[in-house]
């Protein structure tokens, strides 16, 4: 498996996840900020795209059925785990 590619694709998920999380926290206390709402939706759109691309290549990001159907093999148990990349 290509670790460098996996790392760069996972970093995109991490970065956009961080953007969405911070905007989420900001919106909790500024729920009427239209610009922030817009930014949040842009982040969600990109996050979804990056997650799909990553999961297509390297398997599910979530367990317990929250990343959809399994492929031919059970990829959840595959190395490397995120702290091993």
């Amino acid at each position, binding site marked *: 498996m290509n670790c460098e590619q996996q*790392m760069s694709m*996972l*970093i995109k*998920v*991490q970065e956009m*996840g*961080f953007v969405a*999380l911070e905007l*989420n*926290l900001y919106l*909790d*206390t500024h*729920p009427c900020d239209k610009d922030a709402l817009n930014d949040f939706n842009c982040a969600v759109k990109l996050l979804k795209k990056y997650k799909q691309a990553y999961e297509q290549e390297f*398997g*599910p*990001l*979530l*367990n*317990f059925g*929250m990343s959809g159907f399994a492929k031919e093999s059970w990829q*959840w148990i595959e190395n490397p*785990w*995120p*702290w*091993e*990349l």
Partner: protein
Amino acid sequence: MAMGIIEGGEIMWIYQKSLQHPVKVSYPDLKFAKTVITQYGGPDGELGASLRYLNQRYSMPTGQAKALLTDIGTEE
């Protein structure tokens, strides 16, 4: 990263196979481990703080405050 608490459902928390910040665990480092573990646990640790937020949210008067404590508690 990302522990999501789902109340009333069968899932109490989920794990996302990703981190908030890139980390590589490569060799044992006792001094650093000590720092990390005191951040995690103990009276002033993240774990205690997150559980406090997730319990305090039940007595918050507004949806905004409930949401904020839910989100911060989950993030930590």
